[in-house]
């Protein structure tokens, strides 16, 4: 039952990202709420549950976007897998450490996705790629605390 609630929560986050976050864009950047949720779930659940949530989150993002299908699914599953393994080896407690991990994950996700899309479609200028990656990391980290709280509540 809890897993179903989390899946619905991920779907709602995806819909919110697609509709509501435009008005809070800064330099064309919006916070990536689904990625925050996937990372938080990676800290809290076992490997199979994390993979399921990551797959679902990436899949929803792929449906709503127009890039190569499976790109977000692949990246999210990779992030979920890595975090699940990391959380077994290291104790990742503390809000600041988790926010730092979220920032790093966002930068890597954007660099990988942006680079793949550059090869798949028109090239994206390196300056724009780096700027958007770092800005989105800061902005997404800013929104991570409310998502932590919401997921704990669920």
């Amino acid at each position, binding site marked *: 039952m809890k897993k179903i609630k989390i899946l619905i929560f991920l779907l709602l986050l*995806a*819909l*919110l*990202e*697609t*509709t*509501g976050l*435009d*008005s809070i*864009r800064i330099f*064309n*950047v*919006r916070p*990536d709420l*689904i990625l925050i949720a996937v990372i938080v779930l990676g800290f809290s659940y076992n*490997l*199979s549950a994390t*993979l399921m949530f990551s*797959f679902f989150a990436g*899949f929803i*993002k*792929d*449906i*709503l*976007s*127009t*890039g190569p*299908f*499976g790109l*977000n*699914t*692949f990246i999210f*599953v990779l992030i979920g*897998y890595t975090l699940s393994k990391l959380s077994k080896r290291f104790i990742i407690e503390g809000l600041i450490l988790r926010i730092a991990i979220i920032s790093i994950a966002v930068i890597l996700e*954007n660099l990988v*996705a*942006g680079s793949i*899309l550059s090869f798949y*479609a*028109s*090239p*994206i*200028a390196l300056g*724009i790629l780096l700027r*958007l990656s770092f800005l*989105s990391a800061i902005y997404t980290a800013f929104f991570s605390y409310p998502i932590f709280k919401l997921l704990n509540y669920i």
Partner: protein
Amino acid sequence: MVRFKNKKLITFLLIAFLFCLFIPLLRKPSVDILEFPLKIFNSITQELKAIIFYHRNYIENKKLNKEIGFLKQEIIRLREIYLENERLKKLVSLKKNSVQHLVAARVIGRDPSYWTSVVILDKGKKDNIKPKLAIITPAGLAGKIIEVGNSTSKAMLLNDPNFATSAIVQRSRQEGLVSGTLENRLIMRYLPRESDIKSQDIIVTSGLTETFPKGIVIGVVSEIRKEFSGLSLYCLIKPAVDFEKLEEVLIIIK
């Protein structure tokens, strides 16, 4: 135990890979299924924005009302010129331009990734929407349709880096290629060094790209620069359409 766990992981990845191979077929119907929740979310956010940005909207409303007065005068003047043009065309028996059929569509969502500029519209196949149709606003060209579902469609905006269209400078008729930069500005390339182009020139579609009718406003030149090689120029264009505030568009049905 480790081998068994790895087997499980490999099996999962294999199933996920096979799943992803066949799932692209389900993308369009999946967006159609999400149309209703997207509309609900969009309506709620529009209402919240109206409340939060009340003062800003009030000031903008006052400013726009003033502009409407001036524009109404301009419309009357241009209508006179149009009627005169029609009379003169009849005199020289020129063929009339065909009337464009327009379908209004609402923007119900946006692509969540940063690397594309794509919006989801609430019209699809059942409204005669097909891929590659142009979308415009009263301000100018906005983009083109790229994917069509039964009741929804996706449109690529002008500022998407994958977007490109042939355009001309309205004043000098100099041709170039306009494409997006992900930011709220466009770039027009392949301008010869001796091009007759200057700041504040209006850029319109040339009609050479099959998708876009001739003469639709794209934007205004803001800056002109030399390419790295020094052999040609490129210019930055401030688009006529504000892509961040796009709420409704018109789709040109041929």
